[in-house]
């Protein structure tokens, strides 16, 4: 059976109109043209069922989202391998609706739909004011995360 679904996907998550909440999507945009052509790059607003639809047939998923752990400085980057264990509780509460990234991952895991390899890059948000641009430390993190993702994807996908 031919299958043209992407085997590797990069998903930038967030709301570009809410300040640093848009960082995941900014990273996704910055990666256009920098990754092997068979790697799909998509932007999502973080709604769980739409996120899960992106996992269909995928072997490796990289998800980038803003987080608010309160313990870290804005712009600091954390990497979580959620292939076998859930995201830490409480850090991803920026979604305005009941089901967000952590729920999408766990629902996909319960249904056997989670990609075998699933990595989350989380950027600590500073401001999530409506209409605000990315704050300087978070804007600087866009390139940091982009470079780390390029290197990781090159090592694992090719």
């Amino acid at each position: 059976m031919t299958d043209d679904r992407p085997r590797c996907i990069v998903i930038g998550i967030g709301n570009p109109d809410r300040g640093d909440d848009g960082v995941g999507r900014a990273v996704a945009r910055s990666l256009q043209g920098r990754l092997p052509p068979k790697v799909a790059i998509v932007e999502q607003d973080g709604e769980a069922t739409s996120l899960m639809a992106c996992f269909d047939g995928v072997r490796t998923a990289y998800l980038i989202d803003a987080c608010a752990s309160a313990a870290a400085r804005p712009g600091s980057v954390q990497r979580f391998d959620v292939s076998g264990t859930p995201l830490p509780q409480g850090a991803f509460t920026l979604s305005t609706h009941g089901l967000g990234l952590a729920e999408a991952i766990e629902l996909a895991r319960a249904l056997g739909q989670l990609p075998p390899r699933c990595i989350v890059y989380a950027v600590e948000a500073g401001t999530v004011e409506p209409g605000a641009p990315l704050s300087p430390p978070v804007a600087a993190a866009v390139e940091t995360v982009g470079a780390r993702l390029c290197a990781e994807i090159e090592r694992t996908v090719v």
Partner: protein
Amino acid sequence: MARKTIKVNYLARVEGEGAFKVVVRDGVVTSAELSIFEPPRFFEAFLRGRAFSEAPDITARICGICPVAYQMSAVHAMENALGVTVDGPLRALRRLLYCGEWIESHTLHVYMLHAPDFLGYEGAIDMARDHGDAVRRGLGLKKAGNDIVNFVGGREIHPINVRVGGFYRVPRRRELAPLAETLERAREAALETVRWVGGFEFPDRERDYTYVALRHPDEYPFNEGHIVSSRGLNITASDYDRHFEEIHVERSTALQSRMRDGGGSYLVGPLARYNLNFDRLSPSVQDAARAAGLGATCANPYQSIVVRAVEVLHACEEALRIIAAYEEPDSQAVPVEPRAGVGYGATEAPRGLLYHRYRLEADGTIAEARIVPPTSQNQASIEEDLASYVGGFLDLPDEALRNRCEQTVRNYDPCISCATHFLRLDMDRG
């Protein structure tokens, strides 16, 4: 004195942030309060000074779950103010878009938020481990709704293709064929959903609600119709403010609606629509409802999950009918000229009646805006349900009692984000 407080400080599985507190003294519920503490959002103030044409895109931002409803009430109110009527294929496309939102929103609530209450799970993730096939069916059904909104609205969330007078781009007839195929499968999934939820066990509780919904001469209501009630009210949207008022209660950042002249609380949403419009459902949908244990009326709010499933089935069928009859319109929108005036619009959001009123300056600038979302209208009814039903559940252990209270709130699929313009539970039983 035996005193008990049931308190949920942060309600899960509702849209937005809120809490509730029920106080019981000597086996009697003495108070039940729903607090909404999501900050007020001042959308009505944002709208002042903007052009009439911007209202659909600005108000779509009020809610990520029901943006179509905000767009629809906005365009109808603007068209009312500007003396424009949109009919034919453009009207049909608006109804198709609304079908998508009902499927999306209701399916999310039925499967992800409400079903776990009936099957005894903490949430959808726990439920998915034992009921994987059902959850997969729900996700597929919801996606069909997303596909409609994406296709007609331009994108899944906060659609961008709606404008006063019509659309920015209308689909070609042949482009609708793949959507029809998706909807054929969705209709089967919707019918299966009605059967599934019809088999749940429901607490036997009823109240004499005043139902308020739109009623249309031929259609189960989406965009158009008189505002009617189960007590004989029959008005146009322009008379809404004469019969309904919003009052401020200290515990809530959302206003609460009442009927004027001592009419008290009322109920909008699936139960109200169903009770006032059962005869407008197709025979096949009526049959499915009866087979799932519903009559032509239903006064048990715990069965609202069945009514939502019935409405999803209706929306799938209606979408298929609209697509089958679709003729490409001559233009994407009817011309609209600004003028001074006041316009009123009321449409049926998934959670119930959504009322908009705008006053426009001669150049089309918005001078005044008023938006009454369904959850504001249902708040008083939610509190009365807690007050009158919880007394019958007091023999339950604390955790089960708290769950039952949360389930009672979730009967309304409250969208707190919209109403503030969520939820904690606080139960004091001594």
